[in-house]
């Protein structure tokens, strides 16, 4: 099975943000995570906080970015991610549908509070963390949809020098409780780390490393090239098929 690559972008971070989605697709992304900016991104590290603030400062709203999203036609699945305060608002699922989004990640909406979310027809992917005990992990495996988001490290989103040792152990544990793909995220910053992650997981999510480049001014082509390098690493000789 081919390893899955899901790059992330904060919706609205730049006026031309949707152009990056096309670039990601062209670079070989399998899915794209589209972050809907929230005023208080408690799970995010400095990079994505900065991206959120930039998007909000530009006047981006969940409705406006979803409307922009509806104008492009992506050939790969789009997965929205946002915080519970946005996701629990009435009409949110409908807005996702209208924008062509098929999946959803809500990092501060754990298993326990999932019942409050109305998202019929949207695949809601749950997160698993190194601290999650076995019985709870099993339930996450049962109730997650689309894929399971394995949080490679205790902490917030953000680039890190090396893949955390906890990542491999967690990926293995998650794979035991689900048949869904297991994607590793949080701290995967380089093609090398992506390749390393792919040894144990079914794919990777790369957020801060992408956003750092965009915030530093890299255009769609340049960031697309970075995504392509991740794609190559995942498909290269290190990857265990």
């Amino acid at each position, binding site marked *: 099975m081919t390893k899955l690559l899901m790059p992330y972008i904060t919706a609205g971070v730049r006026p031309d943000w949707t152009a990056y989605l096309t670039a990601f697709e062209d670079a070989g992304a399998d899915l794209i995570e589209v972050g809907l900016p*929230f005023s*208080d991104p*408690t*799970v995010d590290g400095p990079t994505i906080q900065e991206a959120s603030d930039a998007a909000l400062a530009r006047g981006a709203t969940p409705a406006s970015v979803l409307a922009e999203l509806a104008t492009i036609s992506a050939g790969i699945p789009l997965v929205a991610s946002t915080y519970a*305060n946005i996701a*629990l608002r009435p009409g949110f699922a409908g807005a996702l549908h209208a924008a062509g989004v098929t999946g959803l990640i809500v990092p*501060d909406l754990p298993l*326990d509070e999932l019942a409050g979310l109305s998202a019929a027809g949207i695949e809601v992917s749950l997160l698993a963390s190194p*601290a999650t005990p076995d019985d*709870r992990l099993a339930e996450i495996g049962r109730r997650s949809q689309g894929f399971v988001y394995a949080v490679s490290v205790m902490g917030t989103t953000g680039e890190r020098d090396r893949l955390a040792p906890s990542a491999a152990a967690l990926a293995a544990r998650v794979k035991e409780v689900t048949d869904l793909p297991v994607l590793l995220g949080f701290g995967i910053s380089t093609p090398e780390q992506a390749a390393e992650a792919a040894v144990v997981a079914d794919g990777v999510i790369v957020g801060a490393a992408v956003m750092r480049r965009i915030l530093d001014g890299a255009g769609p082509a340049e960031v697309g090239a970075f995504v392509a390098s991740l794609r190559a690493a995942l498909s290269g000789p290190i990857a265990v098929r």
Partner: protein
Amino acid sequence: GRFGGYGGRYVPESLIPACQAVADAFAQAWADPGFRGSLARLLSVYAGRPTPLTPALRLSAELGVTVLLKREDLTHTGSHKINNVMGQAMLARRMGRTRLIAETGAGMHGVATATAGALLGLPVKVFMGERDVERQAHNVFRMRLLGAEVVPVATGSRTLKDATSAAMRDWVADADEAYYCVGSVIGPHPYPTMVREFQRVIGDEARRQCATELPAAVPDYVVACVGGGSNAAGTFAGFVDTDAKLVGVEAEGGSGAANGEIGVLHGFQSLFLQDEHGQIREAHSIAAGLDYPGVGPEHAYLRDLGRARYVTVADAEAIAAAVRLARTEGIPPAIESAHALAWVIDAAGTSVLPSGSTVLVTLSGRGDKDLTTLMTEAEL
């Protein structure tokens, strides 16, 4: 973990075990007479409990209502925050945690946590919005003197809500070693319940004191200021089973209970000030401790039930009330507490608070930290 439709545990999966560990440890500790006895002793011999109930004689005469002040300003560190922090710090030690994390607005919770950390030998890291660091320099000094590390938070509105976010980020990165000492009746379960229980000493004492002080044993009104709402929650806990009317007073610019809509932030569902897109609004209050856009979930529930009423007071009214209490009773209150007084002053003699009523007001803290603000704003 729910108060009607509010509360819950809206945290990243990584923090679920940590929250559960706190919940389990608290449940066990709170059922343990040994723990409760140790805490009660510490509050007594260290923190200065019980605090007095002071009849505000001159103010009462002026207003035509009997005002009784519950004097949390007299506790060690100068605010009710110490009640909660002592409980949580002892819990952290019982859980074997090696350091404390806290967020702070006015700085009082940070000072209290730094104090508890020093007392129990636990290192403390306090997150504080940059704006609050500037306007509460006095408390920043106090925390550093106590050996705590103060981390200014430069994101967002640079106030309490951002400090809270930053504290949560620090916790998630070290959930096995760090204990997150939440400063109000907010946060994921079990914090709102636990903090209320640690603060109910205010209401329980006041209940007993009112029984001695008032012919009717229970006051007609029980009034407290509400930021996150811990001093109010603790006060109300002592009177929720009586006929006393409960009044929570928010800052006009931080009125989650009075003007908020349902939402989720910092791990709990409650009422928050937010725009039409679901973005949390910045709160704006002269009182750093009330500068929070939400309110503890139990307050949202009490509001829905109609058991408590939530009202707002403008900055200028709070300042005038602080000066007035200083000059009629010799007690400069914290600007937060002055909000509760300002409502009493404004309402006294109206149908909302008829002449002859008896009113318990919790003075959550002392005004020393606000001297500069008071001297500037009150133009003294």
